[in-house]
């Protein structure tokens, strides 16, 4: 269709663009007339009353017309190619800088508590970003390496958080004992989920993991005697510095090291704690990729049948992938519980799973640095638009769609092969199987 329209569009670009823009405006009018042009509000009697908002409707339709006209004049009917406006030298420079992005980001992360010591808000935001970096790296094992599409990752996050909260409040175990226990319990749940889905592929797997995530959330919501239901669990013990609590008292962290007590100590400690946990996740993932099990994951992602023909046990391969991913999700969950001091099922909705999956996919599946950058951009950007209030989720949704259309392979679209012959070089992500089954 594009080819037929092209000569016509070239001869009379303005006319064609005007025609397209008019059509777009007409469609926009149809879409927005009832939902924007009219508004329903409950009146004083309780019945719905209707009011008109024609100026807003006219503005939106006008904006669609103008946008469509600009697009038509700039690109004709071809796809919007922003790439042609970026000079190649800039791309090369970006690639060169990109090689140092990892160490630079790590250095920056290490320095954040010094740079922003007085800025509690930025420290908290940093902790939040790092939590999502860790979740993204954990999910990356399942989706990016093993190629299993998991829409219920938040379940393991929840299991980790509740494990820590329950163990710490009922048995008064310390964070450092609870952390591995929560990880083990989450891994156990990962295996439990893994068993029924072993035979499933692709979207069946996706829907079962989604269902699993919802089941966990609903059980947490309704098992009032254990989890407190919608009220959640509060007064979860805060973390201590290897036994030294962060309080203004004798025998605390501040008094032991002869420092003046400041509540920021705990925030800084939490920051380094999550940074360390995230780096452990990253390090384990990188090491695992070189082990037979990591190779098996990637082989399974590329072609499950070939993988089975070569004698790889896909059952254990899938289960270990689920267990590993779940374990890191559980660690992150424990951290979340100790940081918040309060958890409730509301923190573990499908939206969280979608957010983590979006971070992994937008960052470029299988790319560790890409996931970190995506978490930084998404969570940081989300905070940046705080002033927009109700519009920010809308902006967030548009960002997801446009990034996907603009760069379907994620922000970092090159992959380091795990194994190579001769020269080591990155390959385009399009050559790597992703989320296939």
């Amino acid at each position, binding site marked *: 269709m594009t080819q037929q329209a092209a000569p016509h569009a070239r001869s009379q670009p303005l006319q064609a663009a005007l025609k397209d823009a008019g059509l777009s405006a007409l469609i926009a009018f149809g879409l927005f007339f009832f*939902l924007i042009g009219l508004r329903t509000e409950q009146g004083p009697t309780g019945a719905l009353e*209707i009011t008109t908002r024609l100026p807003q409707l006219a503005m939106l339709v006008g904006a669609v017309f103008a946008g469509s006209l600009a697009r038509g004049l700039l690109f004709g009917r071809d796809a919007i190619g922003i790439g042609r406006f970026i000079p190649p030298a800039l791309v090369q420079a970006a690639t060169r800088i990109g090689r140092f992005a990892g160490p630079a980001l790590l250095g920056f992360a290490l320095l954040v508590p010094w740079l922003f010591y007085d800025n509690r808000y930025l420290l908290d935001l940093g902790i939040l970003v790092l939590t999502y970096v860790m979740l993204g790296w954990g999910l990356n094992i399942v989706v990016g390496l093993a190629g299993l599409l998991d829409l219920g990752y938040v379940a393991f996050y929840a299991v980790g958080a509740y494990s820590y909260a329950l163990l710490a409040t009922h048995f008064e175990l310390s964070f450092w004992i609870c952390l591995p226990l929560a990880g083990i319990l989450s891994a156990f749940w990962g295996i439990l989920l893994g068993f029924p889905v072993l035979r499933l592929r692709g979207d069946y797997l996706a829907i079962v993991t989604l269902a699993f995530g919802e089941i966990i959330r*609903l059980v947490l919501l309704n098992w009032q005697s254990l989890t407190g239901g919608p009220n959640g669990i509060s007064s979860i013990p805060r973390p201590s510095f290897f036994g030294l609590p962060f309080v203004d008292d004798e025998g605390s962290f501040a008094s032991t090291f002869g420092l003046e007590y400041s509540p920021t100590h705990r925030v800084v400690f939490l920051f380094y704690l999550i940074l360390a946990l995230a780096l452990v996740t990253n390090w384990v993932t990188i090491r695992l990729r070189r082990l037979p099990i990591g190779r098996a994951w990637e082989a399974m992602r590329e072609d499950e049948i070939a993988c089975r023909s070569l004698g790889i046990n896909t059952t254990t391969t899938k289960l270990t992938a689920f267990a590993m991913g779940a374990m890191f999700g559980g660690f992150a969950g424990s951290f979340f519980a100790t940081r918040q001091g309060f958890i409730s099922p509301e923190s573990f909705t499908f939206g969280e799973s*979608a957010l983590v999956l979006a971070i992994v996919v937008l960052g470029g599946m299988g790319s560790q640095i890409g996931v970190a950058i995506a978490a930084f951009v998404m969570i940081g950007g989300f905070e940046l638009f705080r002033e927009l209030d*109700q519009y920010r989720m*809308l902006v967030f*949704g548009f960002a997801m769609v446009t990034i996907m*259309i603009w760069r379907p392979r994620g922000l970092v679209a090159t992959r380091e092969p795990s194994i190579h012959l001769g020269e080591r070089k990155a390959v385009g992500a399009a050559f790597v199987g992703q989320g296939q089954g």
Partner: protein
Amino acid sequence: MEYFLQQLINGLTLGSIYGLIAIGYTMVYGIIGMINFAHGDVFMVGGFVALIAFLALVAIGVTAVPLALFLVLLIAMGLTALYGWTVERFAYRPLRHSYRLAPLISAIGMSIILQNYVQIAQGARVKPLPPLVTGGHTLIASEAFVVQLSNIQIIVVATTLALLAAFTWLVAKTRLGRDMRACEQDLKMASLLGVDIDRTISLTFVIGAALASVAGIMYLLYYGVIDFFIGFVAGVKAFTAAVLGGIGSLPGAMLGGMLIGLIETFWSAYFSIEYKDVAAFSILIIVLIFLPTGILGRPEVEKV
């Protein structure tokens, strides 16, 4: 026994609504192999368009309920179909030749957009609508329990059956249906044989959205309330229904919808209302363990 019969009626009504939404999922999945995550929200948009259209009609003086309902049905189906078309054109078509996860993420983004768009445009509060279709029939009136079949339940089930029949005819007998089946079997081959793929896929979304809008109207009339968040839960359950019935299969979608509706209703009636969704999802998992392609789905042939 009477109680059981009443729950059966309620379950079938709920199942009809799920079934109508599930058809949209199953058609899109059958043709382009993607989970249209925004479909549940298209259903919600359909409900909202219907609500506002009804209020607007009342405001301009159309007060006869049957006429108003008919006009609302036309308006909602038309405009929701336009939403379906726009969503496909804007968020999915550019990604058609991409890898599998790309349209899925785009769809999740689209779902967020639609939800927040409606929330901003119409507010987050629940919108109540007074019951338009009232009355019903008493089937059995024993001392212990009275079994009621309300008019709205009859309308829901009858409309669903009529739409299902019309849709089955469309897929089996018309040119468009043949194109759709061809695309489902092999997209590339169909395009080589002269099927306009873009048009077929667009129309699939349009039809799916129109059916979802009918489900939205049913939901609005049956429950009398609507808010911007109903799309998510209904969407997940309808997709569960589509998978349960065997994704890509039309009778399967309807069967799955009915099953999910019945499971949910009976579980709430006899066990606990809090765990009704857990029951529905658990049954999905159990069915998939033993029938990995759903109840009516064809086994997937893996070629090397």
